[in-house]
């Protein structure tokens, strides 16, 4: 992945959609459900980030 404004803008869209899903779930159910969903998303983002860094390091060797 090339680091540029395009890539960062894509992340704005991803975080926007994720935020919207947390808002929708919170308003439709309870804040706790929204918070748990938010936690799941944060963990998924961390796993994705870890894999991306691992692959990037493997490629750059």
């Amino acid at each position: 992945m090339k680091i540029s404004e395009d890539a960062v803008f894509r992340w704005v869209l991803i975080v926007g959609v994720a935020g919207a899903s947390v808002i929708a779930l919170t308003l439709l159910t309870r804040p706790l459900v929204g918070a748990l969903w938010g936690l799941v998303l944060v963990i998924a983002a961390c796993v994705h980030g870890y894999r991306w860094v691992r692959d990037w390091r493997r490629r750059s060797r």
Partner: protein
Amino acid sequence: MESATVALGHHAEEHHGPPEANQSSRIDKQTLGILLFIVSEVMLFGAFFASYFFLRVVVSPAAWPPHPYELPVPVAGVNTAILVSSSFTVHYALESIRRGNREGMKLGLLLTWMLGATFLFIQINEYVHLGFSARDLSFGSIFYCLTGLHGAHVFVGLMLLSFATIRAFRGHFGPKAEDHLGVEVPGIYWHFVDVMWIIVYVTVYIL
């Protein structure tokens, strides 16, 4: 002996100053600089979020926000929409200059600046009408710290956008990647400010 000293002196003159910095061939130094800056900013926001969750979960009062305080969720929602749309306009500005469309870039930058200024204005107006200050409980302190920290970042982003807009109107920037870094770097910073607001809004106002 004398000639050796002269030769040595001449040699020393040639190698003054620090050695030239190593530069990556994958990423230009301006983009790398703003990315490293953003990483440090993420850590700063992380510290504030840690404080927020500590106060809310560990020191927690029964209700959050504590009675009788209320947060203007709809107004902040509109403000969120304004800031998110400003990410689209800055992206439009960059896409325009990549295609050589200078007028599009100027329009995009101007719209971004105006949307950012509107966001900041609404935020300040919200502070005036909230009915509590940073001195009111830990809730007031952390609310003003988190939103104020973000507001400061919006202000800095507006400064960067001002310089980019002035330069755009003075005929700077071109379609080649190295010729519009002055728009790309503030653009990346602006997207970061936008992402942080989405997280702040969801955490502070919604959850």
